[in-house]
């Protein structure tokens, strides 16, 4: 186990180095410098600059240094905990990151809080008796909810719940501070897709286990059905969904871009979207580091969970 953790940490660092170097290289082009000038001064403002004045502007923003020089400086700052300043928002990247991550964490917390029990329960119920009416109903609904793109769900929920029934506000900008009512639409949009997905996975894992030899043997032996499900089937059936749930942490970070932008929720996804549109390189870099961390950490957690849940791997 210790080896696994150490290996993953080293992997994380290597991935971070590679990805950040790649990003720096991508952003080290005249085109991107021009993009920043246009974003800052406007198209017409940037166009009024002569070549030498444009170069002077580039120097004033520190964009003139070579790629390795800028990368090494940036790396040095990051190691010392300084993630730089957002050129779009005139604020420290660390502040921006802290605020946006905590907003997204709130959203993620509620997503997991609801998603885990609901989808595991429905998935197990459906997978217990493959082909039963309950299975059919749950499966059809799950396929349906996973086949609608989130942007469509978001629009549909807005029209019905916010504009039609007026139960919730249309947007989730939280302008008067945190409000659970405003969180509902983004939450539902994510849940509708995620629950469907997890239900399908749990159901197929459960169905697999239920059709395996040892369950059949247990049932033929005359053990009560309830006991077979709870004691023998469930634990094995949950291995896959639990690892998936942990991997969902990464999936969520990319899904929130659509949902947060649509509902104007000030989280990590919106921050990334704004930064990508502006060419706000420091913010993109920091966000990427976070994304890599989350991806590797969730991978690690799911590996650990897999080992813990699967007795066959414990000896290895």
């Amino acid at each position, binding site marked *: 186990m210790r080896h696994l953790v150490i290996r993953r940490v080293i992997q994380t660092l290597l991935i971070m180095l590679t990805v950040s170097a790649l990003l720096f290289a991508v952003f080290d082009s005249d085109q991107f410098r021009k993009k920043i000038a246009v974003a800052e001064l406007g198209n017409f403002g940037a166009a*009024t600059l*002569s070549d030498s004045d444009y170069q002077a502007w580039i120097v004033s923003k520190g964009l003139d240094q070579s790629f390795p020089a800028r990368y090494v400086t940036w790396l040095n700052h990051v190691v010392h905990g300084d993630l730089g300043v957002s050129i779009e928002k005139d604020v420290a990247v660390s502040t921006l990151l802290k605020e946006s991550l905590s907003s997204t964490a709130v959203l993620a917390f509620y997503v997991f809080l609801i998603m885990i029990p609901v989808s595991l329960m429905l998935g197990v119920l459906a997978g217990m008796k493959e082909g039963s009416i309950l299975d059919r109903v749950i499966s059809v609904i799950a396929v349906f909810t996973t086949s609608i793109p989130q942007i469509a769900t978001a629009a549909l929920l807005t029209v019905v719940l916010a504009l039609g029934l007026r139960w919730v506000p249309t947007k989730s900008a939280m302008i008067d501070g945190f409000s659970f009512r405003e969180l509902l639409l983004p939450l539902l949009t994510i849940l509708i897709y995620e629950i469907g997905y997890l239900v399908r996975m749990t159901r197929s894992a459960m169905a697999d286990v239920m059709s395996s030899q040892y369950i059949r043997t247990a049932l033929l032996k005359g053990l009560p059905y309830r006991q077979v499900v709870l004691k023998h089937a469930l634990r094995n059936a949950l291995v896959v969904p639990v690892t998936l749930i942990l991997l969902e942490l990464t999936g969520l970070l990319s899904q929130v871009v659509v949902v947060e932008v649509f509902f104007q929720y000030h989280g990590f996804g919106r921050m990334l979207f704004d930064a990508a549109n502006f060419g706000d390189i420091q913010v993109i870099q920091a966000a990427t580091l976070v994304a890599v961390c989350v991806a590797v950490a969730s991978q690690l957690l799911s590996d650990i969970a897999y080992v813990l849940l699967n007795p066959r791997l414990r000896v290895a």
Partner: protein
Amino acid sequence: MNVDNDREHPLIPEAREQLTHGLMDRREFIRLATLLGVAASSAYAIAGVTGPAMAGDNLPFPAVDPKAKRGGKLRIGQTVGRMHDPATYAWNEMSNQTRPMLEYLTMVGPDNVVRPMLVDWWKPSADLKTWILHVRPGVMWHNGDELTADHVAWNIRRWADPALGSSNLGLSTFVALTELTGAKDAKGKALRRQLPNGVEVLDRHTLRLNLSQPVLSVAEDCGEYCTLVLHPSFVAPLSKHPIGTGPYTLAELRVGERCILKRITHMTNGQPFHYWGGEVFLDEIHFYNYTLENATAALASGSVDATYELTVEQLELAQSLPGVQILSVPTAQTLCCRMQVDVKPFDDIRVRRAIVKAADNAAIKQLVFGDHGQVANNCHVAPIHPECFPLPPVVRDVAGAKRLLKEAGYAHGLDVTISVGNNDGPWQQAVCEALRDQVKEAGINLSVDVMPEQRFWEVWNKVPFGATSWAHRPLGTMALAQAYRSGASWNETHYSDPAFDQALSEAEASINVAERKIKMQKVEQILQDAALMVQPFWRPVFSLASSRVHGYQPHPARQIQLNKVWMS
């Protein structure tokens, strides 16, 4: 040095004479008189018409509503940008956030008439090359200093600085404060430097602009969105060191989230702050970051009280909402589906004429904006412009278009592509698609290349056939000078015709609107005959506000002006 107090321009008595004898209509007279520095209220009075009620003589604000109540906060939905340096603001919304705090030298009203703001009068010379600006006395900065001519001169010099990267250098006044050095940069762009004596301070409240060429639009240019007046102690970002002359100051800015402005009661020196512009009603102004697509929905659920703009796509949704007011104003904002005259096949005027003839401007307008907006004439001068000469409407002629194509050697059809960036909304794409369907009948296969906004701005003046949106300009000559004069900075069609240049210069030299209007006939006709573009319509600007908001007026250049707005 003192300036003579005889402020009436020599043209005023002449214009009054023309008005009396019916040679000039009232609207034109008001235009000319305000341009020459007569207070708008006096101009309306001389013309014998009731103008829009104003807060006071020589004040740019609308009259105070007797029912107006003090207090409350107005929440506006618009994109919230950073407030770094007003002279280099990239978008208008940034100016909206700043306008309650910093002010202009002049203010262009919702009626497209320019009025004095931080300068209380101005006077051009007969050749329009020298302009006297008089700074309004008694205007206080938030730090306790009084606004002086030196402060204004500092700002104007900055706007004319070629190294700043300000879009103000697209405005004639500030270009005329520079001169060509004769040198060119690596890309062949002619270098400019500031005139050494372009801005001259005459006394504490008076300054003179000595321009390198005649400029008609000094007053209008001084009210453009990047000309907010800064205190000379300014250090960017403005959001960290806000000092203005307006009735509000910045309390909080979170880019992409919110911008909160609060009434200023005391200056930083502890003395009470007296605002020069009279009574102001709102306690707080809040901008919340909702993009155009989101703002209407935000207003529907009560998250904001007003929006920056209501897009035509959301008009129907807005009409279904209870307790809201939909406001609209005619503008000179437009879309030019323009062709480059030196690129095949558009270098053949018969091809350009065929495309123009195959288009039905009125039908496109009806399709995209319904009963709103005004049909345009392919010559980029709008009915809202004071000097607009009404050319007869362009008529669709498919047979004529086919004939021209045949003559040009495209008897079996012509394949062309138009690029569009939807930077002013998806309606632009709808225009191109309508055009595609119309020109098809003449045997022209038009494909529409929709590109992301940012990508479009990289190529807007490079594509042979492109749909460019043009912002509102208060005068008709302004866009023509920027876009169609030989070698002009934004000449995207590469059009160059000495006859047009001369006709335009003659029009620009006429401060007398009636005279200019006559000269504009030639200008407009040359441009229309050159078949540079299909310019289907002038679009209206809509905005949306809750019925609790009073005095919220849409503006042709989308400037939000809140001095006399109140909440019930």
